[in-house]
């Protein structure tokens, strides 16, 4: 019994060791990707914060102007943009954001409105293809190394839908990277822009010259702004995914180490027991002979 038991334990230890090697490797890959992603997210944030400030200033200085992007219309169709990861094994990263978006989708459709989805990230695509909502557009494997032009393409498609009245409101769902241990799911309304929201904080700064006009500047900033938000969200979400994976893999490696320790103990006991037994047998045999 002891010999076969020992062999089994040895085999389990080996198998757990190789799993641990994989989780360790994934952890390292995630941390190096995280470093790059964090840098990109930080750089992007500066750009969009400034863009946002400019937009707020314009609407403060010229509050009575009208723009197609701020005008509210009757909401019949809501478009949800859901950003998730391309790969699993990142703890609750994918399921958290997908569940949040799904709940919101059910909430909207319960009020009699139509819900359509733009899925970004393979996991998001796979999830919503199996659900009851129409998937308007899907984008897989784009998050890593996404360029501003790629996100601009996505935004053009979405803006096209909005301008043509295919959807009346757009909401964005993504995970934000707070620090290496915390990621936060976020959602907010992308369009129509809340003028009240962007006018608050500070008052009119006086005379600013706009060329060609405040409306023209505003309308040309908005697509760039939305592109920016989307780009920022994708980059942010990618950083969050890497952080989540790093944490998940770290605890997986820790667990593996723990199990190996326990198994090693059991193995040593079994080994000792079998040696003791052998000695007893030898001693017993010798006594019988003499």
């Amino acid at each position: 019994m002891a010999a076969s038991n020992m062999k089994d334990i040895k085999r389990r230890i080996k198998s757990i060791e190789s799993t641990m090697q994989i989780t360790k490797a994934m952890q390292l890959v995630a941390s190096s990707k995280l470093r790059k992603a964090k840098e990109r997210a930080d750089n992007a944030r500066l750009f969009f914060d400034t863009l946002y400030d400019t937009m707020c200033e314009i609407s403060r200085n010229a509050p009575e102007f009208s723009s197609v992007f701020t005008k509210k219309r009757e909401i019949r169709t809501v478009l949800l943009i859901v950003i998730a990861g391309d790969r699993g094994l990142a703890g609750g990263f994918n399921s958290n954001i997908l569940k949040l978006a799904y709940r919101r989708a059910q909430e909207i459709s319960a009020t009699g409105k139509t819900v359509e989805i733009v899925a970004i990230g393979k996991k998001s695509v796979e999830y919503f293809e199996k659900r009851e909502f129409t998937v308007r557009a899907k984008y897989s494997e784009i998050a890593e190394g996404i360029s501003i032009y790629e996100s601009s393409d996505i935004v053009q498609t979405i803006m096209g839908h909005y301008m043509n009245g295919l959807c009346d409101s757009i909401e964005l769902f993504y995970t934000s990277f707070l620090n290496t241990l915390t990621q936060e799911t976020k959602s907010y309304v992308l369009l129509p822009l809340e003028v009240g929201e962007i006018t608050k904080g500070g008052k009119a700064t006086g005379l600013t010259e706009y060329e060609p006009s405040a409306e023209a500047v505003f309308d040309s900033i908005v697509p760039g702004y939305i592109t920016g938000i989307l780009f920022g969200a994708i980059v942010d979400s990618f950083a969050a995914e890497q952080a989540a994976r790093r944490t998940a893999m770290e605890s997986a490696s820790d667990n593996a180490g723990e199990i190996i320790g326990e198994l090693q103990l059991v193995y040593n006991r079994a080994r000792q027991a079998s040696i003791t037994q052998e000695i007893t047998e030898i001693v017993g045999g010798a006594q019988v002979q003499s």
Partner: protein
Amino acid sequence: MSAAFKLKVITPEKLFFDGETENIIVRTTVGDVGILAKHIDYVAVLPSGPLKVKMQDGSFRTAAVSGGTIKVSKEGVVILATAVEWADEIDIEHAKRSEEDAREKIKIHTSGVEFDRAQAKLKRALNRINVSRNG
């Protein structure tokens, strides 16, 4: 010797320029605009075009801007652009390839969106080639 002002050129990828200058010349949708210190508060839309920045030694350095916005306020000048490259750092071969690629796409376009995209790409490529030659 004129007064200097702060200039920031920001793209989504990086902070492209952060420093002081005495004069910049930038192409807006309504024409080239020169900006000196104490300019009136001003916001304008930028198409793809050149941006000239007066450097410390008094010479102008040119960069290719691929669309964006310029904002002038008391705190300084901020240019937000989708992409910016200094003239001497432009990969001319790459720009030429994008030009050919864009022309090809314009020829075979199947939808309005594709045409618009290809045209925007062509404009960016031509701007870069132009700036690289004259910068």
